[in-house]
């Protein structure tokens, strides 16, 4: 008889270790990172609840955690001078904050829970402690970030070709 399963418990809104591991293994930023290291990151991740209206992160504050939305919905907003620019809402499966794990960064957006939201959260401190102990993962992660930048800019250039040609504001991938 198995006493332990990875089924959620009624009194404990649980994301079991195996669920957590499955989620992290699918994240593009961790693509190619050895399973043993992803296991450690999954183990160090925790679940956090946010009430509707509560901020997951505020614009301008240190981005020191990454989030994966397990349930609920979040919205992003950027304050520009006196007006707030709303951005699309995201739901289950949305991941953000990965870049903040890699180096000091401040959030360019505020992210708030629109409904009661559950997230899987990994702190920068725990990520960095793991990465210090497994330095071989850095080239993989760097490669994933560079790949993401190129893909993003390619899609952006395709969608905003005329605008980019007019303003000349392009070329992040040339950094």
């Amino acid at each position, binding site marked *: 008889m198995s006493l*332990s399963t990875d089924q*959620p*418990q009624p009194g*404990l809104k*649980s994301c079991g270790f195996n669920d957590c591991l499955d989620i992290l293994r699918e994240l593009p930023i961790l693509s190619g990172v050895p399973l043993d290291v992803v*296991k*450690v990151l999954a183990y160090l991740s925790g679940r956090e609840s946010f009430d509707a209206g509560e901020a997951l992160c505020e614009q301008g504050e240190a981005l020191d955690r990454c989030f994966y939305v397990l349930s609920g919905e979040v919205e992003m907003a950027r304050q520009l001078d006196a007006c707030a620019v709303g951005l699309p809402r995201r739901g289950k499966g949305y991941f953000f904050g990965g870049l903040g794990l890699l180096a000091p960064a401040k959030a360019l957006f505020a992210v708030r829970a629109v409904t009661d939201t559950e997230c899987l959260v990994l702190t920068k401190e*725990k990520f960095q402690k793991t990465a210090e*102990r497994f330095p071989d993962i850095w080239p993989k992660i760097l490669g994933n970030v560079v790949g993401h930048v190129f893909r993003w800019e390619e899609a952006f250039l395709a969608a905003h070709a005329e605008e980019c040609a007019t303003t000349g504001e392009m070329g992040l991938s040339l950094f």
Partner: protein
Amino acid sequence: MVSQHPFIFEGSIKDNLLYSINARREAHGVDGEQGLPSLDEIIAVVQQVGLFADILRFALNSVFKEGKKEHLVKKVVRVREAYHAGHGESLAGTVEFFDPTRYLYYSSVAENLIFGTPRLPEFEPDKLTGNAFFINFLHEAGLKMLLMQTGAELTSRTVDILKDVPSPDATFFEQTPIMAEEFDAYRDLAFRLGRVRLHKLSPDDERLLLTLALRFTPGIHSIVTLSPILEGLLLSGRAMFADRVATDMPGAVTFFRREDYLYPMTVMDNILFGRVRTTSPKVLDQIQKTIVSLLIEEDMLERILEIGLDFQVGSSGDRLSGGQRQKVALARAFLKEPPILILDEATAALDNASQTRIQNLLENKWRGSSTVIAVVHRLDTITNYDKVAVMKAGRIVEAGGYAELMGKKGMLYELVHGSAPARA
């Protein structure tokens, strides 16, 4: 004078706060209550320097001795009732209340079984595996082998995850019941578990497995999930254990009962009568604010704060943080209301919000009544001083009003802007 590393002596916070006033009273041959500030005056100053929340926390973390403070104990139980009646429902997601019919996911297996506070040392959670009465109970309740199996699973999972982590520090042991210093022993045990069946393990290995299982807290140690079967058996075991203790060892445990004060627990735990599910500072702050409002309603806040003021700070204040020591020293100086106040980097250990609070206090409350001489390195705090003197190599090289010196674009300007002004 308040220095960067102020003089704090062994005694209570109150003793330290009244030190300067008592020295002055002694010098003037004053005795009795004359010249001493009232409790309200002390609380007001404590609030001004930002020490109120610390003192309240010390008070709420106090443990009363049985038979002492009986009147207060009854009031705490009343606050508990008011707290549950007014906030129980809204806090259900945040606090796991002690309910005899429910499993506590944020308490250990041992705490779930005992469901009370031990009055005998052998019933302390870390002593249970050496307690023959308890082990016999586990066996008869049909729990011993199941818990050993849970212990084996916790061992295998933890060792599998952490076995290749070089020099894992305490962070890597926050989500497992295995402690850092025990890891090697459990790694060896994991190796043996692959070769020996559970019922053939040595008594020492059995003890190691039970130790882990009894520490297992599903809300924290998510590497293993508590099955509904084991949860049900543990709840039945809780009732059976209470019956056993009542029959065979009456008085060994004080069981959780809503109407009783739990002497071995803190005032805060007595009011909450449950375990907080989160470590989020925002949630904890909200809970504390709710408790403060209830203490005010029950006319208990002053009495509770008096308990906090009796907190023993330890040798040279080593039970206080650097910021708390500076706040105590500032409050001590403010209570004395001296005609001249010298601050030598007196807020250097405080966070930005506390520094701003003290600065506002100096600029508003003290302006016109005392002379404040402050030695500072943080130049954003000096803008409203009447006179600023810039020192270099032990000599004053520039002095005057802040605006005047900045207008001269001399040494102060250079310090504020980090460089000399550009010359035309």
